[in-house]
Each structure stands twice: as structure tokens, then as C-alpha cells.
């Protein structure tokens, strides 16, 4: 199953998003990576790397982020790991996580989920 890493400046936010996603997709593989290791706000290269490694399988890992600097740190992690099918996707963090995990749980593959999330619009 495609897995998800939720990258946020806040540990609470990333855990909350993961909880929200599990409400609709209880078997989802979703890994929160929020805040810094000491609990401060920020994004941690090391925490995100760890989460991606835990999440990784050949089916792929999608990273969803809360805002700009989280995207930058996530991209650096992805570049440093150079694994197949690991991608940072720009979509709304909460709805993207819900939609993505629901699709993943129903067996949709990596490329299709990436496509759906990239074209996701809140108002449609």
C-alpha cells in the first residue's frame, strides 16, 4: 500500500492529520513527522528521513507538507535518499492526507494517487 508522511512544523498538527486520515482509512500507512526532535516548532530533516525510511516500500511514499519551508526540507530528504517512488506532493495537508490514504487503502497505485493529489481542489 502507498504510504504517507505528514510533514508539519508542529508535531500536534502532523499527528492530528494522521488521526483524521485514519478515521476514513483505518488501515492507512501514515507517518507523522512534525516539529523538531526537542518538541520545538520547525521541520526536521532527520525526523522526516526516519519517517520516510519507516514508511518505505516498493509501492511508494508520498510526502505531504503544511507550508513552504516544510516542502524545502522534504525535498532535501527525498533527494538525499534517492529511492524510487518517493515524492513530495503539493496539496492541502488535511484533505490531501484523507483523500490519499482512502485511495491507497483501496489499492490505487502511486502514480495515480500523485496525479489525484496534484489536481486536487478544495472547492470542486
Amino acid at each position: 500500500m502507498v504510504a504517507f508522511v505528514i510533514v508539519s512544523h508542529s508535531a500536534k498538527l502532523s499527528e492530528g492529520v494522521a488521526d483524521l486520515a485514519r478515521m476514513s482509512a483505518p488501515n492507512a500507512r501514515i507517518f507523522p513527522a512534525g516539529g523538531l526532535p526537542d518538541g520545538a516548532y520547525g521541520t526536521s530533516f532527520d525526523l522526516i528521513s526516519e519517517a520516510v525510511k519507516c514508511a518505505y516500500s516498493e509501492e511508494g511514499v508520498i510526502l505531504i507538507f503544511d507550508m513552504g519551508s516544510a516542502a524545502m526540507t522534504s525535498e532535501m530528504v527525498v533527494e538525499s535518499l534517492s529511492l524510487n517512488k518517493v515524492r513530495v506532493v503539493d496539496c492541502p495537508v488535511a484533505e490531501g492526507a484523507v483523500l490519499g490514504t482512502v485511495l491507497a487503502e483501496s489499492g490505487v497505485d502511486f502514480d495515480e494517487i500523485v496525479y489525484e493529489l496534484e489536481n486536487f481542489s478544495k472547492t470542486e
Partner: protein
Amino acid sequence: MQTNEVAAIVKKIAVRIIEEKQFLTELDNAIGDGDHGINMARGFEAVLSKLDSEAYQTPSDVFKVVAMTLISTVGGSAGPLYGTAFLNMSKATAAKTEIYINDFIEAVKSGAEGVSMRGKSTEGEKTMLDSMFPAVRAMQNEANKGESHARIIEAGWTAAASGVEYTKTIAATKGRASYIGERSIGHQDPGATSFTIMLEEVKKAVKNGSFCNSIT
């Protein structure tokens, strides 16, 4: 400039950034989330202990360890941005056992390009790039005229400082400050300021003469 001199300047930069923690944080308070000084100080404290605990073979290795340390410890945008900048500086100087002024300018240029790539940003968006690119151009100009290395770095610093002034006149379109848009006018950019502070430390080191003979 040899490896130990590069490391010495980086340490000076680290100490100075830690001293400016409060100031940089206040600047970020005005237009961002008030953590630039905290982020940078956390990163450079880690850089200091890294540089003290190990010896490095080449200037490129020093830049690389700075990059990796900033990437893992900073926590805000400045982490991936300065991390990418130092990583590019490391790549630009790869395999050189000593760096000359032109290598330094090229390295800073490739650092600025790295920030631009990572941040998907350009000049005029009220970011660190508004100091970095003008500094690079000014240094290139002086170098082309055959000026002394002290003049070159001085010109780079002056251009970076003017870049900071320029950021006061424009609205942010990248980074957190873009959330307040037009209301960011009148405030200087924290990242442009931290870059200028770093270059100021290079300038001081060169002026002191301790690096004069080796940067040619």
C-alpha cells in the same frame, strides 16, 4: 585560503550569528514568525561543535559539514536554504586543497543559485537573494578590474548591505513574510540580513590581514 583558514572564518561567522540571535529574531518577528535568529543560532551552535570536534581535509569538506549540520538542525526555511547554499559551495570547490578569490566568488554564486533553486525564488522577492546576488555581482566586478581581495570582499559586503536596505522597500512574495504581503514593506528581510552579517565576518577576516596572503 586553506582549510584551517576557511574553518576559522566559519567559526567567526558562527560566533557572530549566535551573538545576533536576538536581533535576527526581532527582524523576523516583524514580518515572519520570529524564529530566524533562534533557527540560525541553533544551527551555528551545532556547526561550532562539529568544527571543534573534527579536522577537515579541504575547504570543500568544511562547507559540506556546515551544510549537513544546518540542514539537520536549523528547523526553519533557513535550514534547507543555507544548507543548499553551503552544499553548492562545497561542490563548487570540490577537490581543491586551497581556494582563491575567484573560487570563493564562484562558490558564493553557486550558493545563491542553490537558494534560488531550492526556494523557487529570484531577486526582488524580499529574501536573502536580494543580498546574495548583488554581492556576487559586485565581487565579480571588482575581481574583473583586478582589485585586491580586500576591496573585492568589501564591495561584496557593501552590495549585500544595500540589498538589505532594498528589501525594506519591497513586499515579500516568498517565504512566510509573503503572508503579510504589502505590510512587509518598511521592514528589512531577516535572511538578507543574516547573509550580510556572514559576509561581514569574511570581510573582517580579510581586513585583519590574517588571510591576506592566502587569498590571492
